[in-house]
Every structure is written in C-alpha cells, then in structure tokens.
C-alpha cells in the first residue's frame, strides 16, 4: 500500500516516555485532521502499546522501543510499536480482557482497548525475541475545517 508520509522514533523504555509517545503520535496524526474523539483513541492505543513494552517486554531492564507511523491511502494511519524484549508466550491468552501478569497495578485491558479503539490490530511475538504490534485507523476527516 502506498505510503504518503511516515515517521520513526526510538526511545528507551522509561515510563516517562509514555507521554512522549502519545504527544508524538498526536502531532504526526494532526496532518489528517482527526476529530478529538479519534485523537483520543489513537493516543490511548499508543499509550497501551508502549506501556506493554515497559511493563511486560522489559520488566527488569531498560530496552529500546521503536514506534513507527505511516499515513496510507484513504486517510489510514498505521502505527507499529516494536520491542526486543521477552515476548509473549501465549498471544491469544494475552488478548483476553482482564488477563494480566502485571499484578493489581494493571487492569489487563490493554489489548482489548487497542482492539476496540483501532480498526485493525496485529500482534507478532516470539518468546525471547520481542513483540511487534501493528494497528491501523481510518480517519473520517470530519475534523477538517470548512
């Protein structure tokens, strides 16, 4: 699919970078004139994906998180969040609502929210090699001023 614009970011898995990743994707997505609701959904999905890297991929160390975004044809925003951490042993189990290995500080709703707020979610993971999350969202362009 033709890429009309793209960006790539790398940052360490410090929790302070959750906010940075959200602001960065919001700035990149702004060129598609998203509505406030769409922007909220995109920021939430990115926050969940990056938090997963910090909490689950690199539980005992600081690793590198890569976030890529592309603008595809027909106002589709594609976001990829990648880590080289411990990977997910059972992806189907991890996708279940309320399932978490993160204790009482986590709700286990990360993948459920990513799935319901974005139009497409792919999870590619191998134990020991890391995880790649790819999600897409077609924007309505209702935010375009007349």
């Amino acid at each position, binding site marked *: 699919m033709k890429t009309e614009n793209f960006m790539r970011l790398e940052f360490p898995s410090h929790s302070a970078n959750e*906010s940075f990743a959200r602001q960065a994707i919001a700035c990149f997505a702004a060129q598609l004139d998203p509505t406030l*609701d769409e922007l909220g959904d995109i920021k*939430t999905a990115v926050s969940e994906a990056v*938090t997963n890297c*910090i*909490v689950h991929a690199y539980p005992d160390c600081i690793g590198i998180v890569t976030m890529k975004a592309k603008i595809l044809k027909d106002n589709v925003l594609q976001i990829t969040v990648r880590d080289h951490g411990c990977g997910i042993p059972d992806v189907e189990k991890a996708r279940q609502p309320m399932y978490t290995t993160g204790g*009482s500080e*986590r*709700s286990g*709703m990360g993948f459920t929210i990513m799935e319901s707020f974005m139009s497409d979610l792919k999870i590619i993971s191998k134990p020991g090699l890391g995880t790649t999350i790819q999600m897409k969202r077609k924007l309505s362009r209702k935010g375009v001023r007349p």
Partner: protein
Amino acid sequence: MLTSFLQDKQLTIALDGEIDHHSAQRIMQQIGGKIDQFLPASCILDFERVSFMDSSGIAVVLNARRRMNELGGSVILLNVQPQPMKILCSAGIEQIAKIS
C-alpha cells in the same frame, strides 16, 4: 499531591493531569493513603481535571473500590470527561462504581 476534602464522612479526591502507567502508582498510593487516614463512608473521585487516561486509570478505580469495599463503603466517579469515560465504559466500570 492530590487535593481532597472530607464532609459528612464523604471523602472527595480531585484527580488531575494524565493518568497512565507512569503516574498511576503514585495516584493509587495517594488515594489509598487518604482513605486510610479518613476512613470515609464513601469516596468520590473527581475526574474534572483529568485530561487523558489509559487503562492504568481502570486499575486506579479498581484499587480505590477494593479499599472502600474493605471499609464497607462505595466509590463514586464525578465529572468524568469524554475520553476517560470511554476507557471506563470499555471496562464496564459503571457496573462496580457509580458515575455521576
């Protein structure tokens, strides 16, 4: 530090800013500390100044509810803005905490 006030055994705690994994643990500790200090009959979490929340906010509400359940009390969510409301509703929070 979160601001709060106690009236008629009802503790109101004003949350603010962005609730994510980075801030959630501090917020949970502060809410837990205030509940332990005042032992209220109900705890109101005021979301008026929460500009963003991800699923970490669900855990914040669940932890407050768990602590209030131990006291036989309830949790009420007040002034929830559209973005946090969407997250809370996706987890079915309205079934375990009153939203007004």
